C-alpha cells in the first residue's frame, strides 16, 4: 500500500485507488491482448493485433520493428492517448496490477506523470513552443506532487542539472527554440522524470538526433533510469540501440509480436525469419559489404492481412503450413517465444552466414 510517511495528497490518493502490492508483483507493466483498430477510408486497420508483454521492475524492454508495425500505437494505447480515429478493441494494461483501461479520466490523469510517463521522438514538436522550458518541467511536480512554485523551481533546476543542461538558472527561462535538438531531448527526459515515475515509455527518443548526440542521450537515459530504478519500454527500429539499452526485446511485425526474449539471445540467435532479416539488414562495419541483406517485399496491409503467418509472403523458409490458419506465439525454453513454425531454419541460415563470412576473411 502507500508509504507510511505519506507523500503529498494527490499522489497518496492515486496510490490508494490503485490498491496494489508492489512487493508481490515482479512486473511493473503487464499488457495483455492489446488490440487497436483505426478507421480509415479503405477499411479498418488492425494496427495492433493481440500484443502481450510484461516489463519487469527496473528493466528495459525494447519494442523493435519497421515503420507501421504498430510500435508507436502500442505505446499510445498503453498510455490511453490514442488519436481520435483509433480505438482500443480489447486488452488490459496493468500498471502495478491496476488496469489503466478501466480507470476514469481523472484517475488516469493522476497516474500519468507520477507513475508512467513518455518521451517522444521529436523533441521540438513535443515541447510547447510558447512556454518557457522551466515552466514545462515544473508543471508536473506542481500539479501531481503539490509542490509550491519555489519548491517546484528548485526541483526543476535540480532535474536540469541531472540531465546535463548547462547553466540551468539561465536556461530555466528560455524557450524550446533556443535549445539544440539534444538539449531539447534532455528537457523531455527531465519532464518525464519530473514526477519520479515507475516506468517511462520511449518512442524512438534518439531517432531525430544526430549520431554523436544519440549516444550521449542513450547513456544519460540508461544511467538515470538505473539510478532511480525506473523501468523502460523502448520503441525503436535501431538494433544496436536496443542492445545498448534493453535487457528484453519484443520484435513486432504487422501489428503482432513475432519474437520475444532476452536481448542478446534474440539478436545473436534469432528464431524468427523476420528478426533474422532485421539482423542481416543492419549494417556492420566489421563484415564485408555483401553481408548487408535487405528483407525483400513490403510490410503487409493491416486492413487485409495475409492468411497464416503474416510474414510468409516475404519469407525464404515459408512452407504450405505457413500460408493457412493462424500461427500462435509459441513459448520456447529460456523465456523466449516465437511466432514461426520453422524457427530452427533461422539457426541453420545464420550458421551458413557465419561460415561464408569466415571463408571470405
Amino acid at each position, binding site marked *: 500500500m502507500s508509504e507510511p510517511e505519506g507523500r503529498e495528497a494527490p499522489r497518496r490518493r492515486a496510490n490508494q485507488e490503485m490498491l496494489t502490492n508492489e512487493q508481490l508483483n515482479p512486473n511493473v507493466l503487464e499488457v495483455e491482448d492489446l488490440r487497436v483498430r483505426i478507421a480509415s477510408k479503405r477499411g479498418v486497420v488492425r494496427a495492433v493485433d493481440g500484443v502481450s508483454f510484461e516489463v519487469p521492475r527496473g528493466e528495459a524492454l525494447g519494442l523493435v520493428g519497421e515503420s507501421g508495425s504498430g510500435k508507436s500505437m502500442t505505446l*499510445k494505447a498503453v*498510455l490511453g*492517448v490514442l*488519436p*481520435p480515429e483509433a480505438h482500443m478493441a480489447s486488452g488490459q494494461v496493468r500498471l502495478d496490477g491496476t488496469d489503466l483501461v478501466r480507470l476514469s479520466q*481523472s484517475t*488516469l*490523469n*493522476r*497516474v*500519468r*506523470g*507520477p507513475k508512467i*510517463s*513518455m518521451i*517522444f521522438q*521529436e523533441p521540438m*514538436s*513535443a*515541447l*510547447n*513552443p*510558447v*512556454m518557457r522550458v522551466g515552466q514545462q518541467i515544473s*508543471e*508536473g511536480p506542481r*500539479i*501531481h506532487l503539490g509542490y509550491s512554485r519555489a519548491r517546484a523551481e528548485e526541483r526543476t533546476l535540480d532535474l536540469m542539472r541531472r540531465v546535463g543542461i548547462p547553466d540551468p538558472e539561465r536556461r530555466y527561462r528560455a524557450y524550446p527554440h533556443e535549445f539544440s535538438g539534444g538539449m531539447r531531448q534532455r528537457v*523531455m527526459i527531465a*519532464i518525464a522524470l519530473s*514526477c519520479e515515475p515507475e516506468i517511462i515509455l520511449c518512442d524512438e527518443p534518439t531517432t531525430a538526433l544526430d549520431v554523436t548526440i544519440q549516444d550521449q542521450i542513450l547513456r544519460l537515459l540508461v544511467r538515470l533510469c538505473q539510478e532511480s530504478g525506473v523501468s523502460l519500454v523502448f520503441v525503436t527500429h535501431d538494433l544496436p540501440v536496443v542492445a545498448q539499452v534493453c535487457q528484453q526485446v519484443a520484435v513486432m511485425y504487422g501489428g503482432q509480436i513475432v519474437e520475444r526474449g532476452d536481448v542478446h539471445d534474440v539478436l545473436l540467435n534469432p528464431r524468427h525469419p523476420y528478426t533474422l532479416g532485421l539482423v542481416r539488414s543492419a549494417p556492420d562495419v566489421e563484415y564485408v559489404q555483401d553481408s548487408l541483406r535487405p528483407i525483400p517485399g513490403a510490410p503487409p496491409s493491416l486492413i487485409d492481412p495475409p492468411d497464416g503467418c503474416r510474414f510468409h509472403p516475404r519469407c525464404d523458409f515459408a512452407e504450405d503450413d505457413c500460408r493457412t490458419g493462424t500461427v500462435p506465439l509459441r513459448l520456447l525454453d529460456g523465456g523466449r517465444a516465437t511466432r514461426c513454425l520453422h524457427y530452427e531454419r533461422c539457426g541453420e541460415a545464420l550458421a551458413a552466414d557465419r561460415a561464408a563470412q569466415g571463408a571470405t576473411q
Partner: protein
Amino acid sequence: MSTVSLPTGTEPGPGAPVVPSAAGRRVGRRWYRQPALMSGLVIIGLIIIAAVAAPLLTSYNPTTQNLTASLLGPSAHHLLGTDQLGRDTFTRLLYGLRVDLRIAFIAVLFPFVLGTVLGSLAGYFGGWVDVIVMRLVDIVVAFPFYVLVIALVFVLGPGERSIYIAITIVGWVSYARIVRGEILVAKRQEYVLAAQSGGLSSLRIMGRHLLPNVISQAFIYAMSDIVQDILAIVTLGYFGLGVPPPTADLGSMINDGQNFLSTHWQLTTIPGLAVVLVGLGLSLIGDGLADILRPGQS
C-alpha cells in the same frame, strides 16, 4: 484631415505604443521596422493622447450651449467653428472621440473573451459541444452584422450597455470560428499529446498549452474587429441609438451637422474624417501585427 492631428502634433513625446503586453512578448525584435504598424501606432497614439488630454487642449465644455455663438465658422476662438447650439466643434470632436474610443475598446473585449472560450471548447472537445456552439454561430452569421446590432440595440433601448450587449451577441461568432479552427489544428500537435501523457487536465491543456499558441490569430482579428465596432457605434449614434445626447459622440455630430451641409460642411465632414482616420490607424496596426504574428514569418 490635418486639422485633426495638427493641435496634437505639438504634444511632446512619441506616440505611446498600444501593443498589449500579452502579445508584446511574441512581437519580434524588429516590430518597429514594420511601416504599417508604426504609422498605425503613431496615428492611434496621437488620437488617444488628444482624446485623453481633451480638457488640456480646449477650454470649452462639450455640452455647454451658447446660442449667441451658433454656427460660427472656424476662427482663433473656435478652431473648427461651432454647431447650431453654439457648442465648440473641436471640443465636441475630442470628447466624442473619447467616448467612442472608450466604448469601442471595451466593446471588443466581451466578444473576444466569449468567442475564444466557446471556440476553444468546441475545437478541443468536439462532439456535441462543437455541434451546439457551431449551430449558434450559424444562427448569428445568418443575419447581416449591422441589421442584427441595430435591431438588438433598438430592442434593448439606446445607451452604452445596450451597445456592449449587442456587439457581444453578434461579434463573438468570428472569434469562436477562428479559435476553433486554430485549436483543431493545434490539438493534433505532439506537445498536446505530451501534455496529456503528463496527466494534465483538459482545462489546463486548453488554457495553458493551447490557448497561448492560438490566441494571436484572435488578437489580429480583434484589431480589425475594433474598426467594425467603431463604425457600428458611430452608426448607432447617427441613428440616435447610441450614447444619449447631449454627450458628444461622432455619430450624433454627423447627424446634427447634416442639416447644415450646404453652408457648414465641416460640422459633418470633420467627425466623418475622424472616424476614417481612426479606422485607418487601427487597420494599419492590425495589418502590421498580422505580419509579425503570422506563423512562418520571422
